[in-house]
């Protein structure tokens, strides 16, 4: 037997409401006040929550993501891009194309999240990159601790680039950042041209959008302009890229965007942190080997196999 109630908050700030309740409500016993300095299971001193009056559960996941970011991006100098979107939107094919056009000396790792199976992991292994397969079982998204576990399978000292393919899902990943410099949401024309409007919050949580399968948009009667204008309405200033990953078309701008996110980030860490939506009070010192450079020559678009294992 449970008692529940639901009511929207008033205009009063949380602390005012809690104080009101503490001062006025004699019916409840032992009501703990705002859980101000309360910190849960996390020894990270980088995060100041003095301004928060309560314990933010989602912020714990964001903090874990920051730790991941610190370790992978800054300690190991790896560029990390996360791709998310529905099952069948073309995330795997898109990452395959990015791998194919990378220069020979770029060491790439991929973390593949799927509820079950090795299908995507096998495809990436065939391209010669390092792969960590994560079967989430019942979870519908990757979370920072699952990524942390997957890193065990990768040689972080060797990698230049890490692609993370999230579980096919347009809802849950929004609340679980993974510490990537670029979060790219992949939708496809075949999902219907209202797919953007149906998942606004996920778009708002990402850095870039790919509209994939544009080559068959006409066949499925999808209005690509509408999809693109929905993106800019829902997530202003978010870049959108039209691709046909199957045919390798439209990838140049996406690659430039990813490069830019990596390079801008090296000098503007605060921009990343601001994007994670919570304060972050520490300084970075980039020691030797922590800056990463990509010598891509994307103009030629040549295909080649990676030989590293």
């Amino acid at each position, binding site marked *: *037997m*449970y*008692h*529940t*109630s*639901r*009511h*929207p*908050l008033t205009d009063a700030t*949380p*602390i005012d409401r*809690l104080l009101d309740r503490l001062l006025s409500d004699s019916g*409840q*016993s*032992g*009501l*703990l*006040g*705002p*859980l*101000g*300095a*309360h910190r*849960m*299971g996390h020894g990270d001193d980088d995060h100041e929550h*003095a*301004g928060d*009056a*309560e*314990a*933010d*559960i*989602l912020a*714990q996941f964001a903090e874990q993501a920051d730790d991941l970011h610190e370790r992978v991006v800054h300690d190991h100098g790896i560029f990390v891009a996360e791709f998310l979107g529905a099952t069948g939107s073309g995330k795997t094919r898109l990452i395959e194309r990015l791998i194919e056009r990378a220069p020979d000396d770029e060491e790439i790792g991929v973390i593949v999240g799927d509820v079950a199976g090795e299908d995507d992991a096998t495809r990436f292994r065939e391209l010669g990159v390092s792969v960590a397969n994560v079967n989430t079982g*019942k*979870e*519908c*998204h990757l*979370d920072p601790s699952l990524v942390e576990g997957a890193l065990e399978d990768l040689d972080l000292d060797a990698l230049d680039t890490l692609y993370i393919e999230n579980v096919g899902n347009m*809802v*849950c990943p*929004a*609340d*679980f950042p993974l510490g990537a410099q670029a979060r790219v949401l992949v939708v496809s024309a075949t999902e219907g041209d*209202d797919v953007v*409007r*149906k*998942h*606004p*919050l*996920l778009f*708002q949580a990402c850095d870039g959008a790919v509209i994939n399968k544009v080559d068959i948009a006409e066949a499925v009667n999808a209005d690509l302009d509408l999809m693109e204008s*929905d993106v800019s*309405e*829902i*997530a*202003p*200033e978010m870049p959108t890229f039209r691709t046909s990953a199957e045919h390798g078309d439209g990838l140049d701008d996406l690659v430039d965007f990813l490069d830019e996110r990596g390079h801008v980030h090296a000098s503007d860490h605060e921009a990343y942190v*601001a994007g994670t*939506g919570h304060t972050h009070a520490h300084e970075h010192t980039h020691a030797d080997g922590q800056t990463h450079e990509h010598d891509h020559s994307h103009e030629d678009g040549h295909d080649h196999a990676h030989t590293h294992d």
Partner: protein
Amino acid sequence: MHEFSIATQVLDAAREAAADHGAATFEGITVSVGEASHVNPDQLETCLEAAADSTITDGDLTIDIETEPAYAECACGWSGEPGEIDRALAYAPNLTCPECDARLELQAGNECRLMSVTLPETDDGSDPDAADSPDANTTD
């Protein structure tokens, strides 16, 4: 379905808060869910009920779920609750500043907070150091 892992974390946080105040169990929790988060209040409630077994309370657990509207501040000085995007088929805050058209970043409304924990009454009927505890008053 990520509400279950969130529910587990909420209960852990509540258990820890109760322990900080010398209580082994708690009788009620208040959770605030941001409207712009992807946490579904109904599902969270169900998951909290499912996850709150007898190790937490041998009686009823009172679950109080509030929703927190989106709130944004713009560099131009505007602040407030952003409007909703009409054409979106689900709730979405309009992230364009109504004053200057710049993109808004949300300051609130995308979180899930444990707001308060209700502890059992102690034997002598007094509150176990409840609201005047040293860590209970960090405010801004």
